[in-house]
Every structure is written in structure tokens, then in C-alpha cells.
């Protein structure tokens, strides 16, 4: 027996390594929303390096934009863009609130509005591969972040947190193939599921008989337990009606430009 082990030592060791790799993968598949010690350690170790790189790139950007470019034009543009984003969000919120109000007026037991606790965070890295869509942010469990929290910007939803270390976390973007969000078409309240498809999203399970138009706003349904109700996901960009079947397939242009994310908000909890 010992001789056999000695003779085939390399093969046995390699088989053991392969078995370990398989076990780790199968275990991770079952616990995808948990952050393992290895992940925490690596994220913790690389977090200061990411911060240093972000600081350096910030300094360089400031140097370029504020000193080499025209100072006033740049500043005014930033201010106007901020105002535009604010007003756009307000407009969307008002439309949603108006519709919500008309429905809620009919109800007797109307509960109080909820306030949302938000935490701003900075995007410090993007996904290491081209086919997955995740980002790394500079806030972690020390700031009260846990797995499964909604991440948004003024234009709409960004994604949800999937891995948390003490000072950094990873966010699964809404356009990733693994992302599924309970959604509503705003004008006719059709329920559907928004799935990530890389550059765009698709809306599955939207009933075929429902009247849907190009440019219709799609919002979160608030039923998945992650995203609060009424946050913009995107607008319908293509309608595919097959010859038969119960549902129609809708393509969605996301309201957020996922390739240009810099600062995001994490919705910690909705408090009463």
C-alpha cells in the first residue's frame, strides 16, 4: 500500500487537489450570498491598495480637469449635471407618488411613509473579467453593510451587495446574468422579472395581452425583499411578441450607465 502511494504520489496529490477544488466550488455554489474567510481576507488585504489607487487617480483627475481644462466651464457643468440628475429623480418620484396616491386614497388602512437610510459609497474597482458584471465599493461591514442590500444612484437601481469584507464590499450589477429583479411596468402595473443580459436587461413573464409601448418606464416592484418599491430600472426599448405563448419578451434599456459608475448609495434599511 505504502509503495503504491509512494509510486503514485504525484497523481494522488493532484487528484486530492482537484477534489479540494471541486468541493470548494460545490460548497460555494450552495452559499453564494455568504462571504468566506478567504474572500474577506483578500478583500481586506487589497482594500488599502485600491484606496491608494483611487486617491492617486482622483488627484490626477483633479489636476487635469481643474487646472489644465477650463476651470469655470467645468465647474458649472458639474453643477448643472447634478441639478439635472436631482430634478430627473424628483420627476420620476413624483410620477410614482401620484399614481401611488390615487390607488392608496381608495384604501382605508393607509400606513405611514417610510424613510430610507442611505449610505454613500465610492466605486473602487470593477469586475476582473469581461463576462461578469460586479463592482467593488469602499464601504464594508464596519459601515453596517451586509449581503443583500440594494445599491442605487439618482437615475435608478445599480444592483445588490453580494460579498462584504470589513472595509469593502462587492455589488452584483443589475445587468449581470445572475441578477433577477421583481419589476413593474409603471403605467399599467404589469408585473414581470427583470433579468440582466450584459449590455441591457430583459423583462420576462410580462403577460402577452398587456398593453406595452416603447419608452414605458419600468420600476422595482418591491416584492423581492431587496429593492424598495418604485425605483427606476429602465425604459422598454424593444417588444418581442412570439406567435404563441402566454408571455411577451421585452427588452429594457437600463436607466443607469453601468460602465460609468463612480458614486453609489446603499439602502441600509427602510425605517418606520
Amino acid at each position, binding site marked *: 500500500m505504502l509503495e503504491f502511494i509512494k509510486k503514485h504520489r*504525484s497523481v494522488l*496529490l*493532484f487528484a486530492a*487537489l*482537484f477534489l*479540494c*477544488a*471541486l468541493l*470548494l*466550488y*460545490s*460548497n*460555494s*455554489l450552495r452559499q*453564494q450570498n455568504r462571504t*468566506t474567510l*478567504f*474572500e474577506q481576507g*483578500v*478583500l481586506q*488585504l*487589497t482594500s488599502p*491598495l*485600491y484606496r491608494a*489607487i*483611487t486617491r492617486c*487617480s482622483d488627484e490626477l483627475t483633479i489636476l487635469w480637469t481643474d487646472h489644465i481644462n477650463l476651470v469655470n466651464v467645468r465647474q458649472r457643468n458639474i453643477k448643472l449635471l447634478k441639478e439635472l440628475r436631482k430634478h430627473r429623480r424628483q420627476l420620476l418620484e413624483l410620477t410614482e407618488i401620484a399614481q401611488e396616491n390615487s390607488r392608496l386614497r381608495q384604501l382605508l388602512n393607509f400606513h405611514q411613509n417610510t424613510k430610507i437610510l442611505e449610505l454613500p459609497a465610492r466605486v*473602487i*474597482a*470593477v*469586475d*476582473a*473579467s*469581461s*463576462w*461578469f458584471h*460586479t463592482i*467593488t465599493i469602499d464601504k464594508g461591514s464596519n459601515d453596517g453593510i451586509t449581503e443583500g442590500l440594494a445599491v442605487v444612484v439618482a437615475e435608478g437601481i445599480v444592483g445588490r451587495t*453580494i*460579498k462584504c469584507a470589513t472595509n469593502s464590499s*462587492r455589488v*452584483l450589477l443589475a445587468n449581470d*446574468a*445572475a441578477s433577477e429583479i421583481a419589476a413593474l411596468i409603471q403605467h399599467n402595473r404589469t408585473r414581470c422579472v427583470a*433579468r440582466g*443580459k*450584459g449590455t441591457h436587461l430583459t423583462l420576462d413573464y410580462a403577460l402577452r395581452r398587456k398593453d406595452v409601448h416603447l419608452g414605458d418606464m419600468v420600476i422595482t416592484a418591491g416584492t423581492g425583499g431587496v429593492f424598495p418599491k418604485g425605483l427606476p430600472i429602465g425604459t422598454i426599448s424593444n417588444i418581442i411578441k412570439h406567435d404563441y405563448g402566454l408571455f411577451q419578451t421585452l427588452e429594457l434599456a437600463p436607466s443607469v450607465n453601468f460602465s460609468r459608475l463612480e458614486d453609489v448609495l446603499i439602502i441600509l434599511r427602510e425605517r418606520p
Partner: protein
Amino acid sequence: MNQLLIYFITGIIFILAQTTLLPSMLETTPNLILLLVLYIGLHEPPLTGAFYAWFLGCFLDVFSGMTLGLYGIIMLLIFCTTSIIGRQLTIDSTMVMIGASIIGTAGQTILLISTSLCFSETHHSWPLILNNLVPQIITNLITVLAIIILQHLLRKLRQSGTNEQGKHAWR
């Protein structure tokens, strides 16, 4: 152990470049960790190399996708294939590394699609992965060529430096 540390530090530098600097400059970022695993496959002994490849794959998993161990298995299998084929070829040839980068990228895509179809819930993601194959091969190939050219330039510089030193010593 020293070598593991070297590969670990190289892995960190590559990951930092792959996740921060390169995405702001390029549409498709080169998979530097894959290129490192291919290099290990051609230059390291099988058993230690396999461990390095698996470790680097798991390291990549921390910064990509949702499942720890996916890239671990993929890099381990890529290492094995490269190591077995690499032994039959002339290792010093730059053409081997160029070929390895093309076949390795294609192999990685096939393995990713297979694992997502067999084990993952996101089995509908395979067209996304396949769509990225050609740009990924081109980017990885350009990166390998750039590294080879850089290596040649450095070697030439070093050679000219030693020649200068030799001339001075002769005088």
C-alpha cells in the same frame, strides 16, 4: 514558498491593473491572471504549478463573479492542459506563448460555458460569454505580444549594458 509569494504579489498587481487601471482605458480588459497561469503551465513543475494555478484562480474569484472556486477549477484544468502540451513543445519559443494565449482563452470560455450549463443557475448566460470570446482573444494576444516585445527590449538593453561594461574592463 518564495515562488508562491512572487506569484501571489504578481497576482495582486495583475488584479489591481485588471480591475482599476485597464478598464478605464480599454473596452475589453486582458485576463492577466489567465496569462500568468499559462506561463506557470509552461515553466513550473506539475504539482506545485497546479497549486499555484488553483490559488490564482481562487484569487480571481474574489474579484469576479459570485462563486468562489469557479475560476479555481478552470485555471487548474487550463494549467493541466498547458503543462501536458507544453512539455511536448519548445518552451522558450515565443510562438508557444502566443498559441497558448489563443487556445487558453478559448479553453477558458468553453470551460466557463460548460460549468455554467452544468452547475450554475445562470445557464442562460452562455451567449454573453460566447459574445466576448473574439475581443477577449484579441486583447489577450495583444497583451502577450506587448509583453514579449518588452521582454526583448529589456534583454537587448541588458546585453548592451554588459557589452559596455566589458569594453571598459578591456581598456
